């Protein structure tokens, strides 16, 4: 048991780093994912993940496989797409889903183009799917910074974010924070996706954001426990994914996301608000 669960993390430095990095990622990304889901923007996260690619690729083109330029490039690309899509939906007749799709597709094509200008397909795979087992000090520092900023920002704007989700018109009638808080939140989404792409890749980093959140929805009817639970599920996925990847020699990023997927599927079935409890089980009912 010890050999299976603990030893890999004790014996190998790269496993410790991978665990630390992915847990810190989960700490910031999972609560953000809960709000993405509650704002019915789950697919926006996916679109943003694609949108980050050309920025990361441009950093890669200029400086090679280095975390800081690639992160900054990804941030810039993500912010441009988020603001562009948001602006188009606010100032034209087009809705945000369509403008977001348009912007991220342009961005994705541009990104693939840039990567292929210089790199081999191995590099492309690296950018798309990440390497959690090769996190260096820079990457760990960056992830720590991002999850710190995320938690701090969420704590500050928590009340406004909840109000903006629950009753946006009310928030507008008592405060001007509605629109800023929406963009701050989009900024957090971009930040966490960028933080995740070194470890999990641009395509899979959104998985650690959305899957634990979606799973947590089946267990509780309040926001605060939902965020905590999502982080719990995210952490379990990281540990399980790394162990599976270690013992079965599988790529670690997909293993982590698939673990989260397994938790999600189990939650659909067995969650307190899942299928078995709400649909299949015969309920006794009270008189009032």
């Amino acid at each position, binding site marked *: 048991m010890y050999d299976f669960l603990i030893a890999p993390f004790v014996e190998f430095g790269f496993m410790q780093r991978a665990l630390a990095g992915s847990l810190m990622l989960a700490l910031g990304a999972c609560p953000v994912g809960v709000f993405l889901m509650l704002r019915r923007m789950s697919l926006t996260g996916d679109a943003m993940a694609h949108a980050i690619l050309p920025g990361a690729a441009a950093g890669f083109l200029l400086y090679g496989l280095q975390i800081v330029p690639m992160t900054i490039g990804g941030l810039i690309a993500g912010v441009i797409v988020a603001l562009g899509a948001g602006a188009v939906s606010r100032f034209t007749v087009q809705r945000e889903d369509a403008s977001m799709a348009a912007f991220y597709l342009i961005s994705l094509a541009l990104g693939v183009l840039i990567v292929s200008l210089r790199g081999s397909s191995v590099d492309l795979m690296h950018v798309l799917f990440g390497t959690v087992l090769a996190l260096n000090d820079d990457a760990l520092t960056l992830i720590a910074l991002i999850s710190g900023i995320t938690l701090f920002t969420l704590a500050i*704007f928590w*009340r406004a974010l*909840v109000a903006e989700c629950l*009753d946006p018109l009310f928030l507008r*009638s008592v405060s001007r924070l509605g629109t800023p808080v929406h963009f701050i939140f989009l900024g957090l989404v971009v930040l966490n996706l960028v933080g995740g792409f070194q470890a999990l890749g641009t395509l899979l980093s959104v998985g650690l954001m959305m899957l634990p959140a979606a799973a947590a929805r089946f267990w509780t009817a309040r926001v605060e426990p939902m965020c905590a639970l999502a982080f719990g599920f995210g952490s379990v996925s990281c540990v399980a994914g790394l162990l599976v990847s270690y013992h079965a020699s599988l790529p670690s990023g997909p293993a982590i996301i698939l673990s989260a997927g397994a938790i999600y599927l189990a939650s659909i079935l067995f969650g307190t608000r899942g299928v078995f409890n709400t649909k299949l089980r015969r309920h006794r009912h009270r008189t009032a």
Partner: protein
Amino acid sequence: MTDACLTFKDLTLGYNSHPAVHHLNGSIRTGSLTAVVGANGSGKSTLMKGIVGVLKPMAGSCTLAPGKRIAYLPQQSELDRSFPSRVVDLVSLGLWPRRGLLGRYTKEDREAVGHALMAVGLEGFEKRPIDTLSGGQLQRALFARVLVQDADIILLDEPFNAVDAKTVGDLIRLIKRWHGENRTVMVVAHDLELVRAHFPDTLLLARQPIAWGETIETLRPENLLRARRFDEAWHDDAPWCEPEPGHAHAHGHDDHHHHEHGEVHGHPDHESGPRAA
């Protein structure tokens, strides 16, 4: 007028350059209880949005007396009922004007929320998820939020829709309590009997104000007839409404005068905008 709580000066509100409220002049007295009535599309909700400030005026202005706070209960709430939230969380949103983004909720705040829930007959509902409430219960919860907001000006847009008779009675009692506390209350309503029974003042809208003043005077049959004849549709070929030089002021918008006599506020000779023939 010293006790004006809200002042409209030539206020025009609308969408896509079509006016929904056209050249409204006048003021709302502090502590008054005013019903806003009119046909569908006559600009009642638009006026509410203009007062709260979620809709910017196309022309003119709506001035709030300094230091006054507004609580607004919209007709079509953008409330997301699927959001995981309890009744007590929803009602606590009303603490925003007092506590803002970061202020800690005190024991008194929680008591205020409890009292508000009690006042609307929802004691014991604190922990209920909002997606389990009936329409009337939700409406009462929203009234509780307005109570918690503790505002000087209270705007209620069709609060009696889809609410049973007993609840209407409860809500009317709350409105009268606010009136008694010298708060300024404006309520959009359709039930003229209800308005006649409970509201001292009435504003009758048909894009332009038809009549405004004491309810009995305002709701006279000839006024209601004129309000009914109003042309609800927009016309893309409607002429632009140009301020005639000196006209707007020469018209002598003596707000006070108009208000007290419940006189017609519109511009009977105003040739602009879509109008009934």
